[in-house]
């Protein structure tokens, strides 16, 4: 994306109501505070990335959006609707899907059944079509439809987690470190797929990544999280060129 385009994007966003909006969210684990008042927006059609060191609270934010753990303070709004106190399974029905940290594949279900689980929200309405699509995106899964999830390799499980999230045709896709444990070539593939989903299908993507270089290059906008606070935000390009971001997350290679 060119600088002009990203400025245009930011300008476009200014007047619109965000698809997902997080305001002053505080999340605790017991008495320990993990999110200390997070503000963040994701607009329709965007790829937004969240970067930060281990333990910063990125996964906590992703799960807080789904109400597990629940935000103790602040509000989370989706499509103008307050979802802060909504049960997790109902949030899933608003066409938000997540490929969570740790992948969480159902180990004693086959790949096929895991994908069926992903499609259960829309009652398997276009299951065959969507199965076809994820099998095209991830040919490795196609060969393994009858294999049990628990016996897949780490990378295959990662692919399955993303594929499963796609089966519900989400409007907003949350991806928690999709490149974790994948070979560089596959990482590139995954990022290409995210880009394609965004550009072709208009899917909005919120992406947590350790791989800051790739993520910021791909994303329209990004946020930086440090120990439960958002400390910086900007377009992907801005953050990529920011000396502080470079020093903390990019030095030492991509």
């Amino acid at each position: 994306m060119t600088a002009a385009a990203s400025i245009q994007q930011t300008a476009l966003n200014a007047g619109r109501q965000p698809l997902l909006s997080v305001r002053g969210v505080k999340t605790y684990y017991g008495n320990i505070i993990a999110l200390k008042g997070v503000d963040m927006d994701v607009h329709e059609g965007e790829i937004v990335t969240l970067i930060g060191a281990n333990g910063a609270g990125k996964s906590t934010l992703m799960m807080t959006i789904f109400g597990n753990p629940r935000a103790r303070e602040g509000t989370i709004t989706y499509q103008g609707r307050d979802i802060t106190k909504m049960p997790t399974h109902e949030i899933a029905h608003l066409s938000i899907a997540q490929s969570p940290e740790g992948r969480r594949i159902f180990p004693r279900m086959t790949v096929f059944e895991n994908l069926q689980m992903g499609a259960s929200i829309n009652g398997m309405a276009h299951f065959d079509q969507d199965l076809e699509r994820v099998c095209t995106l991830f040919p490795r899964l196609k060969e393994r439809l009858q294999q049990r999830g628990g016996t897949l390799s780490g990378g295959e499980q990662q692919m399955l987690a993303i594929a499963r999230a796609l089966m519900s045709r989400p409007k907003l896709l949350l991806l928690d470190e999709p490149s974790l444990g994948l070979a560089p070539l596959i990482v590139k593939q995954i990022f290409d797929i995210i880009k394609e989903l965004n550009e072709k299908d208009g899917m909005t993507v919120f992406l947590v990544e350790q791989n800051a270089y790739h993520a910021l290059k791909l994303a329209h906008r990004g946020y930086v999280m440090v120990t439960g606070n958002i400390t910086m935000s900007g377009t992907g390009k801005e953050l990529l060129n920011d000396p502080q971001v470079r020093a903390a997350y990019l030095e030492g290679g991509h």
Partner: protein
Amino acid sequence: MEIFVQQLINGLTLGSIYGLIAIGYTMVFGIIGMVNFAHGDVFMLSAFIALIFFLILTTWLGISSVVLALFIVLIIAMVLTSLWGWAIERVAYRPLRGSFRLAPLISAIGVSIFLSNFVQVAQGARNKPTPPMIRDVIVLFQGESGYNVAISYKQIIIMVVTAVLLTIFWYVVQKTSLGRAQRACEQDRKMAALLGINVDRTISLTFVIGASLAAVAGTMYLLYYGVVSFADGFVPGVKAFTAAVLGGIGSLPGAVLGGLIIGLIETFWSAYFSIEYKDVAAFSILAIVLIFMPSGILGRPEVEKV
């Protein structure tokens, strides 16, 4: 030889009943990691429901076909017992979810005591007999010593009903979206919720399925023995629990296999050794299994690559 075949038939009949109860233990354990100590009493309760409705149907409503009456009784017992199972989970276990591990276990023991006392107060402490139901037997062959090997109509009914219901049950769990949601919650509740599954409702469903299979067992038990008492939840309950552990707790085929094995051990022990010690035999197995094979015959080992 004749005795062996006869005991095989008897053992499989009894084992079917244990297997049906064992599924309830194993499913609940699988999904919320709790031993539902009240399950044996739910089984006992269902036998009473079956008895009451059998009497209503045959004496008041004058249904003369015993098979028809039994069929209606089975349906009613399954429905009413399911409601009990559902209510018990709502009242006694769900409020304790998320509290310390022993809390629901203690609550379950409380429910167990409540149910057996409730039935004792409502129905009296004495054994309740049914009118004689189905007495016909088929003599399979006659042994040289004059000992007849026979299978009774009752036994045929019990085995057929069990087989049919287990098939339906298996289909529901393996092939329907309800069953898939159930298995998903069993494997990862948090992920299931992220995929839009209502976890609380799925847990309720598990109790309903477990209770309705216990009701099948209760009805078959009543048919087989023709008598039931308020205390009958305990021993069959513990044996079914033993069956679930023996088969590998959490495993559905394991529960059925365990039930059949326990049924066979019990009848063979009675026939060849001593009938007084048949319960001891079953419980010794529980102890031995727990020591040497803690994950059971078809159970999965604790560690799993995820």
